[in-house]
């Protein structure tokens, strides 16, 4: 009896190998490949920055400004122009990629991890623990994130890693909220009851059966989080509690220069485009990963 939803099984199709090279299957999708290339370029740029450019990121060059003292637009000498202090913008963006990658990946990753852990625990176990965790999450949500970040940054000495942790502590709440809702509806599903009747333990149910279903959500929040965290770092830098100048980050390049946007648009455009490209790249990879890892999508368009 084949229903219209279930395909006919009489056609003996070869079952595809599941993990037969996630990389290869990613590379087969053109958009995911584009994402991978962008990420690779950014990572390579960050690592190879000293060899890629002849300038020092913090060197204020005399010929980097006009006689009147205004920054130079892109030219053969300064490919992406110079900033207000006569520093080479390309060099600063390349070095800034180090900061932004750490913030966007580490801080965002930690935030995602905390959020998922809190959300899954609260959503599956409910009871007083679930209530306590979620009320705490609501409290964090209601508390102005920036104020919290300022407090935390004031307590600790500002450094890149402290900034990353501060951002993680501020950013996990949205993820926790969303994951909580999804987990609690998943926990009501009949197959979870079925798992319990065969004696599956709570960790097994959580990690083997609930977490895979949360993957799409986690991926979406992860990619969204990259741009959010990079920009939050910029805000913190702007307020003087983020990455300390003269160290470059994409965010603080934008913030240093935003008031001159009309006179020198390249100063905002290039770092902005870099953030956008990185977020987009992760988004493309995330989308493709979600489809590849979802067996129910197999054989469907």
């Amino acid at each position, binding site marked *: *009896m*084949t*229903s*219209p*939803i*279930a*395909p006919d*099984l009489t056609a*003996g199709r070869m*079952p595809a190998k*599941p993990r037969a090279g996630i990389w290869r299957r990613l590379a087969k999708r053109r958009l995911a490949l584009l994402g991978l290339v962008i990420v690779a370029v950014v990572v390579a740029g960050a690592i190879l920055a000293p060899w890629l450019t002849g300038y020092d990121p913090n060197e204020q060059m005399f010929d980097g400004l006009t006689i009147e003292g205004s920054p130079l637009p892109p030219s053969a000498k300064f490919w992406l122009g110079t900033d207000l202090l006569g520093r080479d913008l390309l060099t600063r963006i390349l070095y800034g990629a180090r900061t932004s990658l750490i913030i966007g990946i580490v801080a965002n990753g930690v935030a995602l991890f905390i959020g998922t852990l809190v959300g899954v625990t609260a959503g599956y176990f409910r009871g007083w623990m679930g209530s306590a965790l979620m009320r705490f999450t609501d409290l964090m949500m209601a508390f102005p994130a920036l104020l919290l970040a300022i407090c935390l940054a004031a307590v600790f000495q500002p450094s890149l890693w402290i900034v990353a942790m501060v951002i993680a502590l501020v950013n996990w709440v949205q993820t926790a909220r969303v994951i909580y809702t999804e987990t609690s509806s998943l926990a009501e*599903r*009949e*197959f979870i*009851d*079925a*798992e*319990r*009747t*065969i*004696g*599956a*333990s709570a960790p*097994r149910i959580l990690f*083997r*059966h609930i977490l*895979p*279903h949360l993957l799409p959500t986690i991926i979406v929040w992860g990619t969204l989080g990259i741009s959010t965290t990079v920009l939050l770092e910029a805000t913190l830098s702007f307020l003087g509690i983020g990455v300390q100048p003269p160290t470059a980050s994409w965010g603080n390049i934008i913030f240093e220069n935003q008031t001159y946007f009309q006179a020198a648009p390249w100063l905002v455009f290039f770092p902005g485009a870099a953030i956008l490209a990185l977020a987009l790249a992760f988004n493309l990879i995330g989308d493709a990963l979600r489809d590849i890892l*979802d*067996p*129910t999508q*197999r*054989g*469907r*368009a």
Partner: protein
Amino acid sequence: MSGRTEGGVPQQTSQNPVLAMTPDRILTITNLSVSVRGEEGSREVVSNLSLTLSRGETLCIAGESGSGKSMTALAIMQLLPQPAARISAGTVHLGETELTALDERRMRRIRGDRIAMIFQEPMTSLNPVLSIGRQLTESIEAHTSLSPSQARQRAIEALKAVRISEAESRLRQFPHELSGGMRQRVMIAMALALEPDVLIADEPTTALDVTVQGEVLELLRDLQQKHGTSVILITHDMGVVAEMADRVIIMRHGRMVEEGKTSDIFARPQADYTRELLAAVPRIGSGAGRQQSKEIAEAAMPANVAEVNDLHVRFDLRGGILGRVTRRVHAVEGVSFSIAPNETLALVGESGCGKSTTAKALAGLVPYSGDIVVGGRNLSGLGRDERKAVRRDVQMIFQDPFASLDPRMRVGDLVAEPLVIHGIASKEERRERAAALFDRVGLSSDQMELYPHEFSGGQRQRVCIARALALRPKLIIADESVSALDVSVQARVLDLLKELQREFGVAYLFISHDMAVVENISDRVAVMYLGQIVEMGTRDQVFSNPRHPYTKRLIEAVPVPDPAQRRSRFARLDQEIPSATRRIGEAPLKLALSDVGNGHLVATEG
């Protein structure tokens, strides 16, 4: 005989001679095809279907899932899911009007006014945030020029017509305040308020309990006779067909397999498929394929695999400002039974009677009070690890095979998972065992690499059975495990369950609302009502000599798949089944069971 014009004279395209000849015909479908666009191009779900419907006639369209019967109904209403499905060929004439040619605005005027439709799920087809009155008057006002107060009057009349008491005050109620049967009656009232020419009822009683089903069917029949409405009744239940239909169309894979008068179809089915379908329908009184109901003495000889003693399950409802427990749902109240090896005990009753909660307590899914003894060990006295070990002996098969398998796991892994959890066998052995189980339940071991969504409903239920068998349990709880399956699949799964019982000596706690299925598979039967067992005995005792009035009503309410035995009156409910929710301190009266001979236990009133 239907709409097929002979000869194919080209001039006749504008005027259909069949329509002109028979003014009695209210609805004519000619060569209707519906196609659904999917990933692999478009696929026909209804092919070349022609039918006619006369005034005052009841036409049943019967078939199993995927037969295209619901698509046909939606095509008539022009409500096919957009944009995937569309009518690819054919015409639908309502009187003289060609419905497929109408635009949406004109079609809207016909819907509700001249053709009305009732859907399967009364829970979801009413808007939960609007009162009954609002929803009833809305459609009346949309199609007539009645004033709001006149529309209200009309709505009250419609509710009275479907035998809803206190119609005036009901208008202010919201859907969640009504029971399923009541809601379906409201839907019928809405559908019939404007006295349509045609009423399409798509599985109108499938989601209802049998006793309520009888009542709703009877109501439909009465109203039809009073108003002369033509009814298209879509159902998978041959019992309903036999009770209701004047004429039957059997459909399969989008095609009409057979058409004829109800008595002819049941007495002399022509097509092979119709014969198979009728043979697969479980019937009360046949006890097909089951050995003589075992004698109590013989069954009680070995130690029981499970004993349940004075089981209570109550859910607290909190209310008030302080969130204190103000009311309790007494889901299970003092249920006791035992199951011997190799025995099938059926637990029957209607929705809300506590049968599924009993199963969940036994499977360790809900907290309970009372004693559950499995294999001689009382579960309440054990630690966590010991309980896990004892629970190996009790496995469960759920109702919905679509929902009870993790969609992201391969079925092979799902079947082997119980072995992994309990640390049995090496990886290689587990694979072999899983493969053997696949073969045993009628699947091929090649299919182990597939995911649940790649199987049909019946195959998925086989996967669930294989999974339940993996630990070699002594008791399998089957909670409505065949209810969601088509009859032909149902019959085969039931046969498989019986075979496995003979082979492994496993006992079943078989939970069902379907008396015919229960009669087919059970050795002993326990009837539950409002959380308590009202009657328990061997299958023969309960079915041939039902003592408790509720048991009698349950058995009588089952529609018999034989038009010759059509009843003039269904067993009618005197009142709604009372709620199992009670205030604190108002414990329900405990029924005492007394033996009326040979272990046949019946609750005594008072």
